């Protein structure tokens, strides 16, 4: 069944590039849209895909556990939002088709990363995602986009070299690159210097890919310079799948609970939460503020993972899912505001809620959720993180998490006040609400966020409890 998540998108990619190009270009949007819905269907109703389970055409060792299911859902939801945003913002049909093709390639890469059970295969799919993402960032071919893509390439290449070197060292010790073989080898040679060195290099590589502080140099530029629709995808899910998900998967399935690894994770997570939150306060660029906010929120995920407990793991995954939804929503809103006001400087904005009521409301809900205000989804995941830290006797980290949430609330309210509240500034008088095509992704994301917020107990029992084995 797992192979379907790679083979069907690949088939769709080939299909929409077949002649006659004119017809296929028109069909591309609907084909990609159907694919996203199919992925959601396959995850929520696995029996749908059982007909293909016996397919012997490809020998692919893939696994779909609850952790992978959560990621597949996030991937489908955010890619759907980026697809709809791209359709509304990219008017040229040719460019729009190119964007959808690239989106599809990133989508295949991310599905691959999520499903593999082998560290080298994970590396290969990391590269599929990274190469496609470089092109998405540089898609508009302006100076900022090319600079952002260049920085991403350089940082990503350094991370790639580190990850590949670590894989080579682990292969030397384990003789195989499957998660099971590596786990057994690491257990057998616990005090090996080679293994300790490989783990630290591997973690550093993934920290760069995740954009955690102090490895975040590429992230604010990449997020702020990418085209609007690409930034939704990049900030919403790509960075998490190429950096955070491998961290969770490898720490959970390969390295297992280890005091030193957990300490490194918690220190890096807490550092990112605090420093990025304070860095966000001083930003005047809408997307850069959201970028620093992303670094801070990813810090929460890593901090929770560092608890080493089942609850910590479940909380990390839940915040991963929530963050992918509300941060995509904020980036959709940033792209909408930018398209309408022709600026990203929040000091030039003001009173836009009067002109763009739907965007204003969805943005306010997302800001409150990021800040952890009850009963929104961000509150539940942050609550789980703090409970997990408290149970693991990490009181200092729990207090840091709570205090940083107040800083988050402060800069999110500042953002909301400067952009949407107050009287309409002179330069914004001509601004009007976006059309329904651009509002659609915001509405879909806000509905997902509210459903998760209100049906939290169901979500907890269906997905989170089985992940942690709580």
């Amino acid at each position, binding site marked *: 069944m797992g192979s379907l998540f790679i083979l069907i998108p690949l088939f769709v990619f080939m299909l929409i590039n077949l002649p006659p190009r004119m017809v296929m270009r028109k069909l591309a949007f609907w084909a990609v849209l159907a694919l996203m819905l199919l992925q959601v269907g396959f995850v929520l109703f696995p029996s749908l895909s059982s007909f293909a389970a016996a397919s012997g055409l490809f020998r692919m060792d893939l696994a779909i556990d609850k952790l992978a299911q959560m990621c597949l859902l996030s991937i489908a939801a955010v890619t759907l939002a980026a697809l709809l945003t791209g359709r509304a913002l990219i008017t040229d049909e040719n460019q729009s088709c190119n964007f959808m093709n690239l989106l599809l390639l990133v989508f295949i890469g991310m599905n691959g990363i999520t499903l593999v059970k082998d560290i080298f295969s994970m590396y290969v799919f990391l590269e599929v995602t990274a190469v496609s993402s470089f092109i998405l960032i540089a898609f508009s071919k302006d100076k900022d986009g090319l600079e952002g893509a260049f920085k991403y390439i350089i940082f990503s290449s350094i991370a790639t070299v580190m990850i590949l070197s670590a894989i080579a060292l682990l292969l030397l010790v384990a003789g195989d690159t499957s998660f099971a073989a590596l786990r057994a080898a690491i257990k057998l*040679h616990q005090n090996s210097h080679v293994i300790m060195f490989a783990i630290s290099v591997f973690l550093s590589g993934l920290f760069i890919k995740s954009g955690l502080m102090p490895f975040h140099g590429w992230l604010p530029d990449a997020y702020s310079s990418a085209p609007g629709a690409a930034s939704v995808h990049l900030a919403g899910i790509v960075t998490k799948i190429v950096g955070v998900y491998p961290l969770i998967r490898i720490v959970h399935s390969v390295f297992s609970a280890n005091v030193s690894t957990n300490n490194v994770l918690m220190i890096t997570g807490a550092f990112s939460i605090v420093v990025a939150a304070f860095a966000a306060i001083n930003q005047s660029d809408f997307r850069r503020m959201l970028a620093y906010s992303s670094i801070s929120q990813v810090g929460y995920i890593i901090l929770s993972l560092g608890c080493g407990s089942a609850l910590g793991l479940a909380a990390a995954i839940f915040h991963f899912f929530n963050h992918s939804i509300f941060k995509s929503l904020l980036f959709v809103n940033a792209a909408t505001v930018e398209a309408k006001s022709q600026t990203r400087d929040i000091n030039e904005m003001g009173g836009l809620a009067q002109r763009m009521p739907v965007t204003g409301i969805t943005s306010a809900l997302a800001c409150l959720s990021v800040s952890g205000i009850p009963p929104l989804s961000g509150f539940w995941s942050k609550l789980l993180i703090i409970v997990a830290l408290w149970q693991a006797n990490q009181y200092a980290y729990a207090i840091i998490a709570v205090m940083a949430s107040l800083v988050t609330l402060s800069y999110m309210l500042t953002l909301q006040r400067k952009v949407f509240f107050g009287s309409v500034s002179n330069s914004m008088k001509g601004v009007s609400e976006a059309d329904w095509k651009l509002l659609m992704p915001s509405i879909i994301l806000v509905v997902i966020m509210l459903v998760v917020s209100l049906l939290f107990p169901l979500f907890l029992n269906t997905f989170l409890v089985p992940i942690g084995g709580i």
Partner: protein
Amino acid sequence: MGLTNILILTAMVALALFTVMTRSLLRAAIGLALTSAVLTVMMFRLGAPLAGVFELSVCAGLIPVIFITVISMTKPMKKEEAKEFAIERWSRFWILPIIVVIAAILLFTAHIKFDAKLPPVHAESDVRDMMWGARQLDMLGQVMVLMAGAYGILVLFKEMKKRW
């Protein structure tokens, strides 16, 4: 470690430094090809002929050709610009050879021991079976990396083609 290996490693590091530090893009591309060629020799000596063949054909052959093709499309710098650029480059990278030499001395004198009991390496009897059977998913992934790269060239350089 034999003298030949030390010479090969030294040549490889020197060529890699030249690649990074030269001010001419064309020379950097040639430097990359030469670095890869020396690495190929090392791979053959270490008993990895298949990896050596890939290194030679892709990294020493295909990639420099792509680089040189793109460089031929760019406008060269004026003499004064080039001089300024060279000074800026040196001010940024002068520390690099020193770091390499210090690292080499440290590694040579450290007597690092691999404390893990390394299993014997079992080369697959049939490379085709290994690549298309055991590592089928990786092959598919690599095909997709190439596809993404090709698509990127199409998306980013199509307008340039029109202009030319």
